């Protein structure tokens, strides 16, 4: 099953980029396929760049719910600003 690019993590997209370049390098591709690979490669480059540009560290806090199961909840940065030391 082929996933859309937006579903890829940076690492996955980066790996696909590497594979695309290698295929283009080694493969005896018909012109149409080669152009297709190149265009996909460029889209991956832009996607990766974009991911790096927009990335923002997410922080969640792991606690236990009523049944004793772990639950992760978003943690506001303000909850971390108080310092005891």
């Amino acid at each position, binding site marked *: 099953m082929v996933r859309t690019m937006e579903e890829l993590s*940076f690492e996955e997209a980066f790996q696909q980029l590497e594979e*695309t370049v290698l295929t*283009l390098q080694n493969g005896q*591709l018909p012109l149409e396929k080669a152009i297709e690979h*190149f265009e996909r490669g460029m889209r991956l*480059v832009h996607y990766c760049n974009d991911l790096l540009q927009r*990335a923002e560290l997410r922080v969640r806090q792991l606690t236990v719910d009523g049944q004793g*199961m772990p639950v992760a909840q978003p943690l506001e940065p303000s909850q971390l600003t108080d310092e*005891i030391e």
Partner: protein
Amino acid sequence: MLATLNEPPLTVSEAVHYLKKLLEQDELLRSLWVQGEISDYKVHLASGHCYFTLKDETAQLLCVFFKHARQRAGLPELRNGMAVLAAGYVSFYEQHGRLQLYVEYVEPLGEGALYRRFEQLKERLAAEGLFAEARKRPLPSAPAVIGVVTSLQAAALRDMLRVLRTRYPLAEVLIAPALVQGEEAPASIAAALDLLNEHGEAEVIIVARGGGSREELWAFNDELVARAIARSRIPVISGVGHETDVTIADLVADYRASTPTAAATIAVPDVARWRQDLLEWQRRLQECILSYLAEQRERLLRAERDLRRASPRGQLDQQRQQLDDLSERLLVSMQTLLTLQRERLRGIARHLETLSPLETLARGYAIVRRAEDQALVTTVEQVHPGDRLLLQLANGSVTVQVLP
């Protein structure tokens, strides 16, 4: 209750002064020996006074060792973790409102009990193989989720988040809060580790606490913590205290970082490098397509050349030439044939001439026929006197009559 209150009320100074006098009246407190382990050892450089805490497993006592007392005692070398026997008196330090031991003499007792317990646990766990290199698991190169076990209030947490945000903002941090000092800390840290494992999303766990005294880091020398790290299915990085502090948690962890910041650094890749890598791959991609296109162009040129060579026009030219060749050869052979035929004809004609009776007649012979029936006369018996004969000569014929 209210009736027993003193009247009028004391000021703080009066109350503290009272307390101080009370302590100084006590026989034992005026001169006593205390056995314990040194921690929080500090020498005030300007004054030369030194301060530390004496402690055992359940209590602690603040101590002051003034410069003059230290000099009288021969400037003993003290350090944290050292078990000592201290002599002095107990009094109340009014300005800070605290009770302390004024030390006059110190005698080392060898390594402290806490230290011995640490050494024993270390030996036991080592014998079990918990520190073995073979148990250490590799860390994921780019974890999407990073578990962190520490106190939510710790400065160390903010330091780590800063490092993670800068180096690898693609990640998600999952904090499992824990008490990192005090009696409940070991169980709390172990529970947080177990919780992260139960939750299962984290790909690596950092167990961290900022620098502190040996006692403040003591939770990380607890067997509960060591066991929790050992049973974690997720690789664990320890980042406890400063460079010089090595705890049992450090020894069990899959990777020992010297500080929380170092732990966060080792846990993730640096996206700055990725940006460079990305540029490099982009360059390769473009180079690839350019060289591919150049190659295809080259192939096209080659094919065009081949095509030209194989084109019908070329074949036609060739056939035309062949045709020319052929027609010339045909012409030549036709002429040869004709000459030959002519020669043959001439020969036959000559032969025919020699066979013709006309030639014979020309030499004086005649052909004789009977005039009445034109029959050739070749014998005497055919002729009778009176017969009319026809003589055919070279240039005509005459009729003659046989004499009777």
